[in-house]
């Protein structure tokens, strides 16, 4: 594969995957925190 094509694809897929993974981790962390806070309130 051409180096330019490889570089463009690598940049796009790495950043998109990193953002999606960060959303998944952040979502899991905030729902855990929310559960704790709701338990404390009850």
């Amino acid at each position, binding site marked *: *594969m*051409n180096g*330019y*094509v490889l*570089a*463009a*694809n690598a*940049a*796009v897929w790495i*950043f*998109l995957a990193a*953002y*999606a993974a960060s*959303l*998944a981790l*952040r*979502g899991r962390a*905030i*729902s855990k*925190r*929310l559960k704790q*806070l*709701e338990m*404390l*309130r009850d």
Partner: protein
Amino acid sequence: MPIRLLAFASVAALAVGQWFIWGYAPLEESMGVVQKIFYIHMPLAWWSFVSFFVVFLASVRHLMKRDAGSDILAGAAAELGVLMSGLALVSGSIWGRAAWNVWWTWDPRLTTTLIMWFVYAGYLVLRGSNMGGERRAVVSAVLGVVAFLDVPLVFYSARIWRSVHPAVLASKGGGLEPEMWHTVLVNLVAFGLAWLAMLLARYRIGRAEERARALLLSR
């Protein structure tokens, strides 16, 4: 549709899109394999425009109704728009190096896109500032409306001014063969699904963060 299901569907659609790029679309005669960057570059640019349009609509709604949901939606869409337009700039720059032998040129389309990226990056910095809840939301909403002025300028720049950037959607067929158009459309849909999944996930996180803040304050 649950976000997880949408995420799986978008991964499958992106995989199909890759098959269209590498197994279905013919090789372009003058640029060769480098032209295949177009199939990821164009959907990224397209969905970044849609993101900024969502920022605009949500900002207008926030200024009229002052509801937290539209503020959170505007922030989620801006984040995605900055990511996608940034990746469109990077992939376009790499393509430009291969096609025009330069990484960057101050062409109208490229320049207005870079300005748009900086404006929305500034918008995200403003949203992260410690200005205080409702005031920050209103100031962000005003910027969300004003910033959108640059988006049609980016879209039409290649048609209004003399630009080295091709205006694919402006010309009939855009000089693309039918197989190339199919590949463009499949990838537009695939990136659209991924965009929607990430937007909904980011929106849900924003909602949960707001709820957590409210619970902390009520203690």
